[in-house]
């Protein structure tokens, strides 16, 4: 008689080290685990709740300016440094790690309205309402780290006085040109005291300007005539202009999709446009209750951050109609400028209360070194949460936010207003001849016209 025994090789079950995991053999037959889906649902629910619990987005504030922070610039070549300019003409370089001022760049007599850094991170350009444009040499990091106490201020490389006040400046990606906004759009070179090119289309002041990082010759501006204009440097002529109902405060190009940009509008919404089809917005991002002051895309191109006059910072998906995250603190006042850090993990906001604030881009993200197992666990929870996010309970938990009272009230009010408008529109439509009232889609509702 032959006896069959279960045989297991010891190699498969012996651990090399005591910390190693015990090997487990599983039968993956779904029939054996009928409750697996329910189990995952519960995990997703718990993950959503844990995310809420661990949501601590605020990292720290950087205090030092004595007036409102009007503009910021990130160094494309260096993660830790961020430049900020304030309304009193103060320009500072901050070290994000220590959250201290590393260097000051004194000289501006009026408000600093624009800051930008060249792609190689060597030259800082600042401009302001005192009609001057200043070029500075960015100190290298060795100095930054060691003695910021001794030589705290630096001299500009060049000062160009121009005939009008500046409203903004932006540097071309991988080039030595930068553009200023003011009475007209001027294109400057590092080495010249006069602009190499000027664009003027209409007589209105250009209030913001942004180069396309993917397509370095493309340039978008917004002007006080409520318009957004597209320029091409090679053709030395403006290309297209679209006029909206309200003013656009700032523009950001999607760094991963060179055809798309998003405009931060005065009506509290952001509008994503495709350069090729300016007659309608591709997406309307609503949530702010007051005008959006600044916008910046994450370097991944998947989301962007906005700062608003309603004292909040929000993060939107590039294709999402509503924000996925909303940051606020009690002491943060009107936000004038926001930036995504170059590694897409932090957000910096500058506000009226003279402070710069550093936030995490993902509120509940764990900082510091994460072990692989831990990381895998996080990924799994995230995936499960993402998988069941359409279920009502999980959706509710993920969406829930505690809003400051003014924003909450304003949101409610706005909802009421839009509802009543919608009702009115419906009634008007119902009582007029069929087809006489066309319902304009939201994406084109705020666009007045496209100018050739």
């Amino acid at each position, binding site marked *: 008689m032959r006896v069959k025994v279960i045989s297991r090789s010891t190699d498969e079950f012996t651990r090399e080290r005591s910390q190693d995991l015990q090997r487990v053999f599983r039968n993956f037959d779904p029939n054996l685990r009928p409750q697996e889906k329910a189990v995952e649902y519960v995990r997703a629910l718990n993950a959503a709740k844990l995310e809420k619990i661990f949501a601590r987005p605020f990292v720290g504030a950087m205090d030092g300016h004595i007036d409102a922070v009007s503009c910021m610039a990130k160094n494309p070549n260096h993660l830790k440094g961020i430049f900020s300019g304030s309304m009193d003409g103060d320009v500072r370089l901050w070290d994000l790690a220590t959250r201290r001022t590393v260097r000051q760049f004194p000289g501006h007599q009026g408000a600093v309205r624009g800051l930008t850094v060249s792609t190689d991170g060597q030259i800082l350009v600042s401009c302001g309402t005192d009609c001057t444009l200043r070029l500075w040499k960015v100190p290298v990091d060795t100095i930054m780290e060691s003695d910021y106490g001794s030589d705290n201020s630096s001299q500009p490389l060049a000062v160009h006085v121009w005939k009008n006040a500046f409203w903004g400046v932006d540097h071309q990606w991988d080039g030595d040109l930068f553009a200023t906004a003011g009475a007209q759009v001027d294109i400057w070179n590092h080495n010249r005291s006069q602009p190499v090119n000027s664009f003027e289309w209409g007589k209105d002041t250009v209030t913001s300007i942004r180069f396309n990082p993917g397509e370095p010759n493309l340039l978008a501006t917004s002007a006080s005539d409520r318009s957004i204009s597209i320029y091409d440097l090679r053709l030395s002529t403006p*290309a297209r202009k679209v006029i909206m109902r309200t003013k656009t405060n700032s523009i950001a190009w999607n760094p991963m999709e060179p055809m798309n940009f998003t405009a931060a509008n005065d009506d509290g919404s952001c509008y994503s446009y495709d350069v*090729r089809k300016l007659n309608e917005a591709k997406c309307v991002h609503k949530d702010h209750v007051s005008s959006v002051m600044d916008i910046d895309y994450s370097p*991944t191109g998947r989301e962007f951050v906005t700062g608003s006059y309603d004292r909040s910072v929000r993060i939107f998906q590039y294709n999402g109609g509503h924000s996925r995250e909303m940051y606020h603190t009690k002491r943060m006042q009107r936000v004038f400028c926001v930036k995504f850090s170059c590694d897409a993990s932090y957000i910096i906001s500058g506000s009226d209360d003279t402070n710069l604030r550093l936030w995490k881009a993902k509120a509940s993200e764990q900082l510091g070194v994460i072990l692989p197992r831990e990381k895998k666990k996080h990924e799994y929870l995230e995936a*499960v949460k993402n998988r069941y996010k359409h279920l009502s309970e999980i959706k509710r938990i993920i969406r829930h936010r505690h809003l400051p009272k003014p924003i909450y009230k304003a949101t409610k009010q706005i909802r009421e207003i839009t509802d009543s408008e919608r009702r009115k529109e419906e009634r008007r439509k119902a009582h007029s001849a069929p087809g006489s009232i066309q319902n304009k889609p939201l994406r084109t509702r705020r666009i007045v016209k496209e100018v050739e």
Partner: protein
Amino acid sequence: MAGMKRKSREGNKGKAAFKKKKNQSSSGGADGRRKRTGPRLPNAMLKELQLPKRYTDSDDDEIGSGDGDDVVVNNDLYEYEEGVAEEESKKNRRFDPVQNYQYELPDDFEDENVPSDEEDGDDDEDGQRGDDDEEEEEDDGRHSRLLQEITGLPTDAFDGKKKKNDVIISEAYSESEYNPSRDILDGDGRISIQDLLDPLHGKPDHGKLRKSMSRMEKKSMPIHAPLPKTDQERLERRAAYDVVQGDVTKWEPHVKRNREAPTIYFDEDKDVGFSTVGAIAAEFEPRSDFEKKIASLFNDHEVVEAHRKDGARLLELNKISVEDVRERQDQLAKMRILLFRHEMKAKRVKKIKSKVYHRLQKKDRLKQAGAAIETDPAAAKEQAMKQEFKRAEERLTLKHKNSSKWAKRILKRGLDVQDEGTRAAIAEQLNQHALLSRKANNMKESSSSEESSDEDDLDETSDGSDQDVAVKLLKKAKDKTAEVLEGDEELPASGVLSLPFMVRGMKRRKDAADEEAKLALEEYESSLKELEDKNKTKTQGTNILTGRRVFGAQKKQAPEPKTKVTSDNYYGDSDSEGETDAREIGIGACEENNFSGREVHFDPNSLREESEIAHDSLFKSFDDVARDPSSKTSYEVSISADDSWKKMNDSSVKRKQTKSSNAKSAISLQVTEPVEIDEDSDTDSGGEMVDGILTSGIKSTYEIPSQEELIRRAFAGDDVEDEFEREKQDALNEEVPEPEKPVLLPGWGQWTSIQKKRGPPSWMLQEHDNAEKKREEALKKRKDANLNHVIISEKRDKKAEKLLTQTLPYPYTSQEVFEQSMRMPIGPESNPATVVPALIRPEVVKRSGIIIKPIQFKEVNPHERARDNKRGGVQNKKGGKSRGKAKTVDQKS
């Protein structure tokens, strides 16, 4: 300062007056006036030269300049002298009515010193000025000398200019539409080329100039005025925008790829194993032959030694004979020249515009390709592939089957209305379609051609009576076999087939075939004989047996061909394959007739005569057939009969059944089915035929059953309503279960017989009653309580509800896809460890501390991209590395 200003203003006025004056004076002759607007010398030069002033002072015609730019004849002396007088004269006029408007001259105006037109004309012709005083001449001489010195041109080149100088006009404002020049105001004051040429008369190159001018005049084209600036700018902007759009569009594939990728990666692997190229190179080990060879060269002691110093010694090692070099150079030169010639030829050919030429070229090319196909199997294969692809495409798109908008429109409007060309085009398209979609036959052309000829024959025979068909076929088959037997194939005289062993083999084969043919021939003959006998007896029999029906049978001979024809057309249109199948069956039946003579009775006539109602009779006949021992063949015959009578169109189904029908019961079952199908599908086309048959003579016996009757018969077997009711009852019982009958556990309460009689206690009964009542109410409350034909399920699992969603979540568009994506759990407990990372990978993989650069342009190969997508591989735009993510994609979608 004020004085100066006034003076200048007056100067303007004076200038205007002067203009007018000139106009007046020049009204006599146009030539003279034109001269005055010739080229002028710069102001400074004039000043320096102290050109003489030719105008005397008067109150109104002082020449001055408001703008410093214009040419002025300035003489300090004059200005000064005049200044006083002018001031005096004009002082009070500021508020006085203006007497001398710009283009009016005062009546008392008198031109004193301006040279008359005649004089000017004289001057021009003479080339010198007769009426000037000596001083002026002296000045002129100085002037021209100076010019000569400056420009280096001969003196007489400036002679013309000199004249202009003394009639200089200054204009206060530059010319514009608000301040037109004098010439324009005059209307006809244009300067012609001729005027400019005149002063050069007699100069060395004048003739040449004039000639070229006349040539130019002949070919002169009007030049359009430029567009307004706003329009120009708009056009520019539009062009710029077009360029921008084009520029941006090139990113589309990148963006699309990124968006569609399940994951994009931004974590460049910083810690690659090797930090430097040197480190990588040090690890390199030669494996292949080539690598080994190269490595041996590299490690060659001599070479290394030579390289070590300064590399100069490497040259010594590099020995090549002069011949080799020369040969190589020659070869290269030859190749270059050939290439160049080819290029030139291609260029020349490309430039030829003649359509005829290109047509011929194309023809040649096609011919060549055809030749290549014949000779080269690879080319033939390629060609076949191409052709096949075209056909497949055609079958897919039906591009040429009048499906285009244009064709539809044409057809809608009617083909008759169209002109020749359009009709031809439509015909051509259809032709194209037919060509492209025909395909399959072409593959086995050789075999099908014979079949088609058979078919043709059959068509011919079918015109006659059905009885003859079999006979004719048999005869034909006999003939053919005889032909084969007799027709000796000519043995090839040359080639492979003429080899002795081949000849032997062929002969052997032929012999075998002949044997077979003989056998077949005998069979044919015997069967033919039998058939003829049967026919005789049968016709006799019918004539005798059916007195009344003889008439019908005879009469039927005439109309039947007609119905045949129509039905043929019908099937020819719809499904030629089915038709041929049916025919084949017929043929097969005829061929096999010799095995069972009985089936011949089942020809259409006899069938019809037997039948009262069409399909009933059919059933009967089929049943008969089924009962027949030689079931297979007889069944086939009966079907062929059916074919000729009812034209079944589902013959393929039947054929299948004939193949499989062996058992009796199976046959009877299968037979009924197709007939039913026929009944359904043939209602429209078969109706006519039934009519036709009816008129042909079965009027008295046949009645069409009503529609309801037909339906009732068709669904006679199934009791749907009962079934549904049962189903509904089941559903209700499941959702609102009936209360259990009050049962006592065995042994409980059974102490005595009395208790047993009493049955279950009253409370139990009451409970049961209550439960019953409750159930009744629940049933009444249901939504489908009053709907007899509906079941509305109210089954709901509250526990499972939270796992279900009411609406389809956003990116999904179909429920199936969504459910499929949610089917499997993604956790490590239910998936192998190898796939879990792929399943739970986030959409964006990045690492904090690594700077993410914006997108950079890289050429994308669309095919590669497609493959990548299929694989689910994602290429990182920065690193350009791709990772296989097949599992993710498979699992998720």
